[in-house]
């Protein structure tokens, strides 16, 4: 009986977690690189224009910023795509 309660509770928690994560992850995933660039750069410093670096330089800089700001993988890729469009 006690084991069942634990299993049911865990199942509910996992289901809620998966549903919430899926729904909202999609919301964050739907953001454009431009939005993520504005939201994340300004957490520490002014947002740079895409003309500040070349495409290759942006790849290096963005990886460095991923280290500093602990960006997620999706944020890193979308911001990089956005910055490289300007070169």
């Amino acid at each position, binding site marked *: 009986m006690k084991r069942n309660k634990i299993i049911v509770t865990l199942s509910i928690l996992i289901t809620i977690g998966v549903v*919430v*994560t899926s*729904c*909202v*992850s999609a*919301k*964050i995933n739907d953001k454009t690189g431009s939005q993520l660039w504005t*939201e*994340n750069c*300004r*957490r*520490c*410093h*002014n*947002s*740079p*224009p895409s003309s*500040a*670096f070349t495409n*290759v*330089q942006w*790849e*290096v*800089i963005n*990886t*460095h910023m991923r*280290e*500093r*700001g*602990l*960006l*997620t*993988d*999706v*944020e890193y890729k979308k911001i990089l795509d956005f910055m490289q469009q300007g070169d």
Partner: protein
Amino acid sequence: MKKKLILFSAITLLLQLSLFAQQYNEQFIDSLVQSVSQAQVAKGTKFLLTGYVTSTAEFTKTKSSLSAVGLTPILLWKPNDRILVETEFETGFTGNATNMELGYADVSFYVNKYLSIRAGKFLSPFGIFQDRLHPSWINKLPTFPLGTGEDQYGIGPISEVGINFKGGAQLGESKINYSFYASNNAQLITDPTNPIAEGTLSYGNMDVQSKKLTVGGRVGFLPFSNSTLELGVSYRNGYVGDTSAAYQNVNAKLYAFDLSYDNQLDFLKGDVDIKAQYNKSDVSNAWYIDPSNPTSGNLYTYNNSRSSYFLQAAYTPSMFPGKFLKKTQLIFRYAGFTPPTNAIGLTDMKQYTYGIDYWFNWRTALKFAYQSQKDNNVFFVQLAVGF
């Protein structure tokens, strides 16, 4: 005979000219190929020199000086998609001498979407100031907040030497980031000839040895999907005494709580940026030589628990008309330090800093600040240029 000599000389000269021309052409072609290939290599190489230059002047009632000029080059190299090499050198003047310090030098390996492993000397993820905000082109004021450096008021390291596991992930509408490490130990200062430093911790000494490595980490939580707010908790635990019987079991536990908020607020017609950090350190019981009479050999002890904190708020009228206002920023910072009770030579300290910055571009600022700290009031002017 004379004709033959002229003919021989003419042929020799022609040969020399032709050889010279050939040599010239080869050198020219070689240099051309080299320059083209070098350009192609440079274009494909993921190597970048970046960093910042800082020049600071300070004025008090009794002195005026250009107190600090510094160049901090940062070398970044990404040899492939999974590896990043980062190195920062801090150069500046001390008196007449130029000094150089290795800010960080580390190699990161990206294991998967959620984890990277970094080894070497890296900025400590203890709070947010040193890890993210200390470069002069980011720091909105010319000085570091009281309690964040590695002086008698500082709590927590600037950098670590060790191995670091870190990453970030979505968590529903929110985000979480994490950074855990095992690193070299700090060192408890027990020198009675320097009473204000006695009982503090020194970091970054490669010779420090103790029973176990220090472990620590920070977890950051961004509750809103627009990443405007981040709350962080840091912890660091390790032995800090030397291997002698008197100090080998002395341990230090450090905690930090940080907050970061940045958003454009319509009702204020501008951007608001708030940063805050609270640091605490608890060093376990240790005996120190009485600094008021160091030759006596008298020992004394106290509860070596100290804390420091800062709160910084900045406002940029970004929604006002006019370029000048949009590039101007007002800043206020309040910082403090609470020493251990009964520690000899240390007193409670408060620091107030008022600043105004003008941003020529996203990484170049001219800063003016007035800082008041007990009897020490200083006016600063600083030019910070990122490159």
